[in-house]
């Protein structure tokens, strides 16, 4: 079952370069952004070099080819998620996907199923990335709705003990992450989705950290909307995905207005194209969308089940090795069946920035800080952590390098 990591690494040109005076690159920051296989880089280059034209516009061959490639990418993403093609909206980022939803709720006609006001509540969790917290926090401010949230247990799991007081008949939106970008916790959302639907709430899932690493099928998941970013799943930057259950997506009002999202326009009024087009105003990021499809196909050729098993084995090894270093405290579940390959930790008096700087001098890339989840790190009482996040191109040798460098850092900083 294990992956041939040596072969996979050959597909990623970045691993041919060295870091900080000739050191091997040990890339443990895929939670921030993944590296790109050559097929993704080639797909973008190929689009610009041979097919570049504005999709959905123009009566010429290039425009036809660009449209075909763009729409074929939509099919790739849809089949990857177990969704219908017309349920996939391309945005510029997951952040935009989530903001699109929040503003679409604001734009809803009074009385429509998306209209939100002071009689409603929005439920999030304390482990949300800022991108799935602030849009809802600000929607609550704009609309007068009450913002409520699930807390986090001391071992970094979602605290569902008060679900009955959080999700009530007032709840309009439940926006929640499938996998924490700090704790690595994978949230089983079945119970929350069931409860939310029972009270008529709409469930929005932040899947940025899950979709690149575990098999996700939106039909099985049962949520209403789901967002993820392209650049964390081997794709280019500048492309995000919003999936929505079609009947909801088609009733949802648009957020960005402009070219190509309309049905008819006069000087004083406009009507909208059907979903997904009404959410894709302006010439889209075509090369990036095509690149994303190439990245997803590459990942599918490995197999998501295998990716998940690989990361589980690596995570088990990483946790085991970390726990043998005196002073290390892992933040988040230690049971690998509850978590993914994103591991945050603290190391006694060595501040994460200093540790991160030392690791960098050894060629090791990690993330340090609050990871855009400041309320979470505050709740955990750790102002900052060091985070190692794993992906298909990592193997035990990367973890060995990390562990050795952490031990050296302890000596360097005199701990």
């Amino acid at each position, binding site marked *: 079952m294990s992956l041939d990591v040596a072969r996979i690494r050959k597909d990623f040109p970045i691993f041919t370069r060295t870091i900080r005076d000739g050191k091997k690159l040990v890339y443990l920051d895929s939670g921030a952004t993944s590296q790109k296989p050559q097929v993704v880089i080639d797909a973008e280059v190929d689009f610009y070099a041979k097919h570049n034209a504005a999709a959905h516009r123009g009566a010429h061959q290039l425009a036809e080819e660009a449209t075909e490639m763009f729409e074929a990418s939509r099919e790739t993403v849809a089949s990857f998620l177990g969704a219908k093609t017309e349920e996939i909206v391309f945005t510029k980022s997951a952040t935009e996907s989530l903001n699109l939803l929040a503003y679409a709720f604001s734009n809803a006609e009074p009385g429509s199923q998306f209209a939100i006001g002071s009689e409603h509540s929005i439920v999030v969790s304390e482990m949300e990335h800022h991108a799935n917290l602030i849009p809802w926090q600000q929607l609550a401010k704009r609309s007068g709705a009450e913002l409520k949230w699930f807390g986090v247990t001391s071992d970094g799991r979602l605290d569902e003990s008060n679900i009955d007081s959080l999700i009530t008949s007032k709840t309009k939106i439940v926006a929640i992450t499938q996998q924490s970008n700090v704790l690595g916790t994978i949230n089983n959302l079945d119970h929350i989705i069931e409860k939310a639907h029972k009270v008529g709430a709409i469930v929005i899932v932040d899947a940025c950290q899950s979709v690149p690493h575990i098999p996700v099928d939106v039909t099985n998941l049962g949520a209403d909307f789901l967002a993820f970013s392209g650049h964390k799943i081997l794709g280019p930057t500048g492309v995000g995905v919003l999936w929505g259950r079609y009947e909801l997506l088609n009733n949802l009002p648009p957020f960005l207005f402009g070219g190509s999202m309309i049905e008819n326009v006069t000087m004083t009024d406009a009507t909208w194209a059907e979903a997904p087009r009404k959410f894709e105003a302006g010439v889209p990021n075509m090369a990036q969308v095509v690149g994303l499809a190439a990245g997803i196909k590459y990942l599918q050729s490995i197999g998501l089940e295998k990716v998940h098993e690989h990361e589980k084995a690596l995570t088990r090894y990483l946790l085991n090795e970390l726990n043998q270093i005196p002073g290390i405290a892992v933040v988040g579940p230690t049971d690998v069946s509850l978590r993914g390959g994103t591991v945050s930790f603290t190391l006694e008096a060595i501040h994460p920035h200093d540790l991160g700087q030392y690791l960098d001098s050894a060629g090791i890339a990690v993330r340090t800080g609050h990871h855009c989840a400041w309320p979470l790190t505050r709740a955990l009482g750790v102002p900052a952590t060091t985070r190692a996040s794993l992906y298909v191109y990592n193997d035990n040798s990367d973890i060995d390098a990390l562990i050795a460098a952490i031990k050296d850092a302890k000596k360097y900083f*005199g701990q």
Partner: protein
Amino acid sequence: MQLDNLYQEVILDHYKHPENKGLATSYDAQVHHINPSCGDEITLNLTLQGQKVSAISWDGVGCSISQASVSIMSSLMMNKELSEAQTILDEFVALMQSKGSGSPDESVLEDAVAFAGVSQYPARIKCALLGWMAFKDASVQAQKKN
């Protein structure tokens, strides 16, 4: 090792044994500065006597660069005329922006020359400047008050 340019002994010493840490109860101005990219925070209390710095105290959490920098700055600015403090501040900011090519004036910056290496690490310049910007802010507020 190139990293030694960043982590000078004097920086690590100040990090482990910070000076003027612990907030005084009386002050002319109190400021709270945050580095939003990393979460480093400091609170700084400043007291002036006329145009002269008579007391600085601070508290905070953060990396060795940010915390040592506040510590060294607080000792350096103590009992300085505000005009002199401004000269030191300008010299330090220029050093941080020098991309590793600055030749700091040790007679002005004293122990703060240890931060010269930080200018080669763009991500850390904000860490080093956190306390200095807090001082600048506090001195403006204290002058307004007086």
